[in-house]
């Protein structure tokens, strides 16, 4: 039987406010335990929440960026459950009246076409603290620094049909939230994490299959893997005549499997009700319109501009606009060297290779945009060739110096002196009688390919410093003279 995969994502985005959603405590990752809390965050009786206006502005900005209805009247509700990392006994969230209603974003799918994914809603809520289960004399340690950190929970429609589409949606969401500046998008630190609702159904069937919810996935790589193993698990069960249980599961990246979470008793009975400590939030059209007007250039717009203005390929434009930091970096490189296509190549291939190898994002790359721009400039003005440029990039990555100093110190300046190159070409031809004879004997249209051997020898003789264009021309002339 052929199966259709149905995926919906709930993405939690940590908003980049300075202070907490309901208190004046600092928001920040990595501080000493319990140093960033107030009586409000501790859930002390009588301590009342006051809502952070920046969190509201960020949520509304998000709504306008995904073409969503922004709700002029929204209400905080209490989601009741008991867990020690939430000392109030409830999470302040939104239920019936979320701040952001129906919207959408477009993703690129594998065949290159565009697919629209619906966003059901986005609501504001507070994060909980952290439980540390290491043994403290048989007790559990609680750190409440994260408590009341503002989150925007973004709920998608079940519109995705493969793990790849889910990743594309998550990446686009990441690009949007970082571009509009409402989150740092740091997945390793939990600033963006997602739950995936996954089900399968026979192709052609309207009714959705029973879904499993995969909790707390915190990297693009794991979204794809977790969904794929879960889909296979469900198909195996159904094809053996079994039934899928509706349950919450955790993805174990070490074993590459999903397994059920120990069910918290009656966990799904949250008994939501409007929070009596917080009044309804009322905003007007003028407030929403002012925010809409101040939206920065969004990833899709930036990508389109890279194509129309800088004449990049659709593919490069999409890759480079995938995050605000990457797009900013790329444009800074172009500003220095003035060649968009070379800049795109160096950022998406050479620099990207180092970033993958060292597993760092562009924000942490040791090569500045200024340096990469200068390096490309040195290729353009003929000072160095592409091969030498890669050597310079390696040095830049290891932070041994600046572009011109590296070229000088390593003696990488390209030899464009025709006499010197001609001498090396002659040496190689004299030293390779066998290959020269093969060249002469070959069909004319095969000779082009055979030139590669001689090119390699000359470049080697020049320690990579010869101007490849000149070597090629001279070799061809001299060899053809012999034929």
């Amino acid at each position, binding site marked *: 039987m052929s199966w259709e995969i149905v995926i919906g994502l709930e993405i939690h985005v940590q908003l980049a406010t300075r202070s907490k959603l309901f208190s004046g405590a600092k928001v920040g990752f990595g501080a000493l335990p319990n140093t960033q809390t107030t009586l409000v965050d501790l859930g002390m009786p009588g301590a009342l929440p006051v809502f*952070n*206006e920046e969190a509201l502005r960020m949520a509304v900005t998000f709504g306008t960026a995904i073409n969503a209805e922004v709700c002029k009247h929204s209400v905080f509700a209490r989601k009741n459950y008991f867990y020690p990392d939430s000392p109030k006994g409830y999470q302040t969230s939104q239920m019936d009246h979320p701040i952001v209603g129906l919207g959408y974003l477009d993703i690129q799918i594998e065949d290159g076409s565009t697919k629209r994914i619906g966003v059901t809603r986005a609501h504001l809520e507070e994060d909980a603290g952290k439980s540390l289960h290491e043994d403290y004399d048989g007790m559990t340690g609680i750190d409440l620094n994260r408590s009341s950190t503002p989150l925007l929970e973004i709920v998608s429609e079940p519109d995705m049909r493969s793990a790849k589409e889910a990743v594309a949606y998550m990446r686009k969401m990441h690009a949007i939230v970082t571009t509009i500046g409402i989150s740092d998008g740091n997945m390793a630190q939990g600033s963006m994490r997602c739950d995936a609702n996954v089900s399968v159904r026979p192709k052609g069937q309207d009714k959705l299959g029973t879904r499993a919810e995969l909790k707390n996935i915190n990297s693009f790589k794991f979204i794809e893997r977790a969904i794929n193993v879960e889909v296979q698990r469900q198909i195996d069960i159904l094809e053996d005549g079994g039934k899928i249980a509706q349950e919450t599961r955790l993805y174990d990246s070490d074993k590459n499997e999903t397994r059920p979470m120990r069910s918290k008793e009656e966990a799904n009975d949250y008994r939501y009700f409007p929070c009596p400590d917080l009044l309804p939030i009322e905003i007007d059209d003028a407030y929403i319109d002012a925010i809409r007007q101040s939206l920065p250039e969004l990833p899709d717009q930036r990508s389109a501009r890279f194509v129309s203005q800088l004449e990049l390929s659709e593919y490069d434009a999409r890759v480079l606009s995938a995050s605000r930091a990457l797009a900013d970096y790329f444009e800074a490189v172009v500003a220095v060297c003035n060649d968009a296509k070379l800049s795109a190549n160096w950022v998406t291939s050479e620099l990207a290779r180092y970033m993958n190898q060292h597993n760092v994002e562009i924000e942490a790359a040791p090569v500045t945009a200024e340096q990469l721009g200068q390096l490309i400039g040195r290729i353009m003005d003929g000072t160095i060739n592409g091969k030498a440029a890669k050597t310079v990039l390696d040095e830049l990555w290891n932070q041994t110096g600046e572009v011109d100093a590296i070229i000088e110190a390593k003696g990488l300046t390209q030899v464009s002196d025709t006499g010197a190159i001609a001498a090396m070409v002659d040496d190689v031809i004299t030293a390779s009688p066998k290959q020269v004879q093969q060249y002469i004997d070959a069909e004319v249209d095969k000779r082009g390919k055979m030139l590669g051997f001689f090119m390699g020898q000359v470049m080697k003789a020049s320690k990579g410093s010869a101007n490849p264009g000149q070597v090629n021309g001279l070799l061809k002339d001299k060899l053809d003279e012999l034929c």
Partner: protein
Amino acid sequence: MALENADIEKIAILARLQVTHSETNDYANSISSILSLMDQMQQVDTEGVEPLSNPHDATQRLRKDEVTCGNQREAFIAIAPATEDGLYLVPKVLD
């Protein structure tokens, strides 16, 4: 709407309240009588009336996004029953 003893036991679990077997009956009766008052209120015609999320004729006041409280850990830790390494300790919980 009348509550059974089983309903009371479930509510007690959700609210983390310890209710003894002998109390269960009493609670079932008293909560049922509150619910029957609600049933009575349900009779009121509320056609066209917007649900009220808050009785005050006011909207939420906003706070500037400023850090106004520094580290108060020592003061808070001092009133906690059990702490270690700056963490509050609670009976062991498992995920």
